[in-house]
């Protein structure tokens, strides 16, 4: 990687205001797991580099001297030689498969590494190896290789019609994690926040949740959205987004950081072919001094799994696409409900989260975050949440 240091010096000496050169290499294995055997194994390696200068991005497949010379508009021999150290390595598909349950799955294993070269230095790192699965119901999951394999079975949707009217719902950690990702993660990304569409505009420092909910974005956690340096070369850091129900922080890249005085470190991108933007990484949520066990008897709905969530600023509501839920009576399951959209209204005092669990549990589903058509792995962990005044849409 010595060549990269020389390249950084070259940028520092140059007259162009280059923000960074970004190098990226990714290896991905895919196979079908049919419960007992691995079939349809494929492999893919991608490599690309890009240059950013003001509002300009130029990207090229490949990471060679020739490609860098094209980006810089110089002759190849004037670019210092460099290469990645060693080959990217991934676990053998049979080793991965040995940990999977005996159900049919499409499995992917991805490893990548990046190097950011700026006039002020070089930042290179290898990203965690992430395993992703899709089950026969089309549900997707991600986890970091080496961590415990999450439950991968399809959600159990029933035939009973969901109830009408406003009611209390108990969210398991997976739907609670999706809720926090959509309600606090994306709206506190600086580009969304300063667009004016975030429900938290003008509410930094204001209490917006009844319960003492804490939400952090932590790229250093061993979850799929993790990194040590972001895609602009900034050091990863844990950021508190909500503390004891009060909105505290924003996720920013260098541009927003410089303009609005927020700490950078949250720039992510799918590949060098895209400009980086503020993106959440691993959203972790819990309620300070919350209860260990969920109060099922206080809820009418038990939401076990959701597929996705969507914030509707005009409707002042969050929508969850519920895939597995139960009707409760005195804390016992009475019926397994068909799938539906659950609507969580945001009133003047925010969302009616009235209680929650104190111990965040990793949630592997849906595992991908698709802001701006850039599908990136996103980690999540949450405790259960008890919500008031929700309704079936």
């Amino acid at each position, binding site marked *: 990687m010595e060549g990269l240091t020389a390249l950084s010096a070259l940028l520092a000496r140059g007259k162009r205001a280059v923000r960074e050169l970004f190098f990226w290499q990714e290896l991905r294995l895919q196979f079908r797991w049919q419960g007992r055997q691995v079939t349809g194994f494929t492999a893919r390696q*991608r490599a690309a580099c890009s240059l950013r200068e003001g509002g300009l991005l130029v990207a090229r497949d490949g990471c060679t001297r020739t490609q860098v010379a094209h980006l810089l508009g110089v002759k190849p021999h004037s670019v210092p030689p460099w290469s990645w150290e060693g080959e990217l390595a991934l676990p053998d598909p049979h080793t991965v498969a040995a940990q999977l349950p005996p159900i049919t799955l499409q499995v992917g294993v991805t490893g990548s590494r990046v190097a950011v070269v700026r006039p002020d230095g070089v930042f290179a790192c290898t990203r965690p190896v992430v395993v992703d699965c899709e089950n026969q119901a089309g549900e997707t999951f991600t986890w970091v290789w080496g961590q415990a394999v999450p439950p991968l079975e399809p959600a159990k949707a029933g035939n009973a019609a969901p109830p009408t009217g406003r009611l209390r719902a108990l969210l398991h950690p997976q739907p609670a994690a999706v809720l926090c990702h959509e309600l606090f993660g994306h709206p506190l990304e600086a580009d969304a926040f300063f667009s004016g569409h975030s429900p938290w505009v003008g509410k930094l420092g204001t209490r917006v949740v009844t319960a003492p909910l804490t939400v952090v974005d932590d790229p250093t956690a061993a979850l799929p959205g993790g990194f040590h340096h972001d895609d602009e070369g900034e050091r990863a850091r844990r950021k508190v987004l909500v503390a004891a129900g009060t909105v505290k922080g924003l996720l920013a890249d260098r541009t927003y950081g410089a303009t609005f005085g927020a700490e950078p470190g949250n720039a992510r991108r799918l590949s060098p072919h895209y400009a980086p933007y503020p993106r959440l990484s691993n959203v972790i949520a819990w309620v300070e001094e919350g209860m260990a066990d969920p109060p099922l008897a206080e809820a009418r709905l038990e939401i076990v799994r959701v597929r996705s969530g969507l914030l509707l600023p005009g409707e002042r509501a969050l929508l969850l696409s519920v895939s597995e839920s139960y009707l409760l009576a005195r804390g016992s399951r009475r019926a397994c409900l068909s799938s539906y959209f659950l609507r969580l209204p945001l009133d003047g005092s925010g969302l009616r989260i009235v209680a929650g669990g104190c111990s965040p549990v990793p949630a592997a589903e849906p595992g991908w975050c698709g802001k701006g058509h850039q599908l990136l792995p996103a980690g999540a962990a949450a405790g259960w949440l008890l919500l008031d005044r929700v309704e079936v849409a």
Partner: protein
Amino acid sequence: MSGGLAEPHEALQAAAAVLAGRCEVFEVFVRRSHSLRLAHHRRGELCREESYELGVACRVGKGQLIGFGRASGEAKEAGQTAARLALQSLTDGHPTLPVASLLGAVPCPPPPALSEEEISQLFHRLRQANDARDVALTWLRARTLLARSEGFEAFWENQLVLWEWSQEMFGEEVMFRRVASQPAQLDPPSCLSLVCAQQPLPPLALEPGLRRVLLAPDVAAPLLLGIALRTPKKTHPAGAWDLWDVRRGAHALLPMGCDGEGLPACNLPVLTVDRAETQPWRWLAHRHGTVRVPWDSPPTPGPVHLWQKPFPGPATPPGSFSGLAALAPLTEVVWEQQRFRLLAAAVELSRGGVVAAGVVTLVGSLSRLVSGLLTTLGPAEHVALGCPVSTPWLVVANLEVR
């Protein structure tokens, strides 16, 4: 050899050199693309993103085993790496390569190229055409080479222009995406004519139930894609269907020489009723029709460009329609086997005039959708999804609205 073929051929030769003598049959697929994206962001800055990409996908056959490897990078290196990964991944469970006697290609003349100045002028015209806050124009030109070890080779070139912008509709942000092969084909969605002049509007007051609904192209498009990908079961298609996967000819946005594994390109009926059999097209029952989107996907049965032929007539949507019109999706379609659910911005119309607006949930099954198409309104509009979908407005009976 033209300049456009030099890099794909270099990749092909590099792959072939690795594979020669190490497998019984091989196929090399190379895509070289150049794209330019001009965007105006809400933070006020203008961005210009230019990309040069080259991807190589190799399939190899040895005995009963097939290997599939892909790599991107510089031509020679990518070709060698893709070939090496293909040999390393020889396993069962892959579809076999088609026999050489089936291979062939149809003529596919390259589209007239756009200059950077023309793209830039188009972007500035589109920026001024609406009051969108985020707007982006992407021009993409791709060259594709498909070759087999038996000596078959096909080459074709495509061009697409993608116009994306976000626009507020009844308080919600809606992302519109239009696609064309030439700038003249880019028109703003006709549904916007029902929005701009009519705000503020009273909220919708709907009783949940089955209704006749007018679907704007942006709502119809993902449902048509669902029909193409999910093959409805036990259907009795309504007579108004004329849905095609267009791969060649004047209506094709992405004309191609051959399909994803070297069979001559042809237009495929997806759901038509003027055929002897009134059953939907079943992709998997036919050898033709594979596609590689993106370049690193294995050849998979699926649509390249869906086109629902509009009914002839001067009707301009919504015409004198009375009832609910779904204008734009707010969520992606949630599919559960054959059932779908999506949230959409909608208006209530009375003789074509807007009387109320709001957000509705549309629920249904593919079979009910397939049997419920009453007619179409207006010309086809080109919506960009996983593949381009050209569709007019659809009038559908018995759609569940909540």
